[in-house]
């Protein structure tokens, strides 16, 4: 039996007085593509920060690749793309290549320099996201969507087994969002990388994801995409706290 990549058992977290996460249990298995959806302020980013080890849960246990998070030493197995990558200092003097290569820092290890092999990995990661031609360009010259692709390449350079993304399409124009998601789909299917994607674009992403988790302080639903699709919009609206209409359901209703 393979161990879960992420295993959360009974995880709770409070910001001073208010409870942000209430007894969360969730397992992400090898090669799965999870969409974590929920309204604003539902605790999605808090949960991601706990998984990344940036926050400590008030109670409960977090395991990564079978190891307790405190003793987990293989951070290079996780690639991370934040929502805030869009707001990096665009005046920073760095080329696309330098930024992507920096994703290998941990894998290469302290006191060592990048090798030829690392250069190849960097170029390969850029090729996967379709940015190989931009390697020598300055980061500040790129559009928001291109920058986000570079940050994904940075996360991919270390050849991670798990990619965690917190609303990576914020700041990317709608035209590019679809091609961005199809790239994620490819990464998951062809490269077998497990993905945990936080998003509010429930229509686009739930078609791609193999699994869906609905969070609003607690996990209201988690399971396969097919089960999620069978849910009534009203149920989801109740969890969200406001009306939610999924596009594909509309289509079904129209066909009926």
């Amino acid at each position, binding site marked *: 039996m393979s161990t879960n990549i992420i295993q959360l058992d009974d995880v709770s977290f409070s910001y001073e007085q208010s409870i942000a996460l209430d007894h969360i249990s969730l397992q992400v298995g090898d090669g799965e593509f999870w969409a974590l959806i929920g309204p604003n302020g539902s605790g999605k980013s808090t949960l991601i920060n706990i998984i*990344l*080890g*940036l926050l400590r849960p008030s109670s409960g246990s977090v395991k990564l690749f079978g190891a307790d998070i405190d003793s987990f*030493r293989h*951070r*290079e197995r*996780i690639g*991370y793309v*934040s929502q*805030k*990558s869009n707001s*990096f*200092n665009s*005046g*920073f*003097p*760095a*080329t696309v*290549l*330098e*930024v992507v290569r*920096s*994703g*290998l*820092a*941990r894998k*290469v290890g*302290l*006191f060592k*320099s*990048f090798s030829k092999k690392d250069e190849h990995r960097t170029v390969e990661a850029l090729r996967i996201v379709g940015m190989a031609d931009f390697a*020598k*360009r*300055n980061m500040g010259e790129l559009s928001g969507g291109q920058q986000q692709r570079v940050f994904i390449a*940075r996360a991919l350079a*270390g050849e991670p087994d798990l990619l965690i993304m917190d609303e990576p399409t914020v700041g990317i124009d709608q035209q590019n969002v679809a091609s961005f998601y199809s790239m994620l789909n490819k990464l998951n299917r062809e490269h077998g990388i497990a993905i945990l994607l936080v998003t509010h674009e429930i229509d686009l992403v739930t078609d791609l994801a193999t699994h869906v988790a609905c969070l609003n302080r607690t996990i209201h639903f988690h399971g396969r995409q097919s089960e999620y699709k069978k849910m009534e919009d009203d149920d989801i609206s109740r969890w969200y706290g406001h009306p939610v209409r999924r596009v594909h359901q509309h289509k079904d209703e129209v066909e009926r």
Partner: protein
Amino acid sequence: MITDILSYEFLQNAFLSGLIIGVIAPLLGLFIVVRRLSLIADALSHVALAGIAGSLYLSQQVLFFAALNPVYLGIASAVGGSLLIEKLRGAYRHYEELAIPVILSAGIGLGAIFISLSKGFGSDLIGYLFGSVSAVSRQDLLVVIVIAIIVIVYIRFLYKELFVLSFDAEYAKVSGINPRYIQMVFMIITALVIGASMRIVGILLVSSLMTIPVAAAIQLAKSFKGAMIYSIVFGELAVIIGLITAYHLDIAPGGTIVITSILILLVVLGWKKVQGGRNVRAAKGELV
């Protein structure tokens, strides 16, 4: 000039020290600037002033200090100041920049007290404040060499981590790079570079050699490596022109070095403007 350098030891000391700090000050300065820590260098140099003034005062009072090179106490107080800044930044999480004026004022305050208490080290002090061509000893040169080796080893071996930390501190944390120790050592190294540079550029102007060549470099460079090379080239240019001018005019090299680097910055900014204008005209031409 060259025959003078070959025949006078003090000139050799000054020029060799100058050439070395022309490399290490802008090299470390690049990391300081992109991490938006420019003012920290200023604060630390003022803490070094307290150490220098303290050492000069004590040398009048205690025999042991009369034999001690004031640079050592200057470096020690800058290193102490760097650790205090880190502690204060931790205490004021939401107002991290508060640590800088606190430490800066503490440095000047202590410096003022020691300067007032002592009598008659005016010319010595001026040398420390604005740099000196004639006052650099062999011992000072050795200190500069040792510090340069430490700085270059630090940057050579922690380049990846420093880059990640400078570009994206959150990502550094997520990827398991512990910023605490790297940052702590970074502050100490900054204090050391200030200590190494103050004999030549002077306490009041040392932070400018760390920031102005970098300010010019990041206008031109597309890559981080490029910014590093430009910073060092501009730093060296400023030091060489500044030292030669200071020697010929018999004035403090701190002033000439800094003004030279300002002139380099102005030339670079002017060049960028001309280039920008040309690009706009070219784009318009394409439209036509």
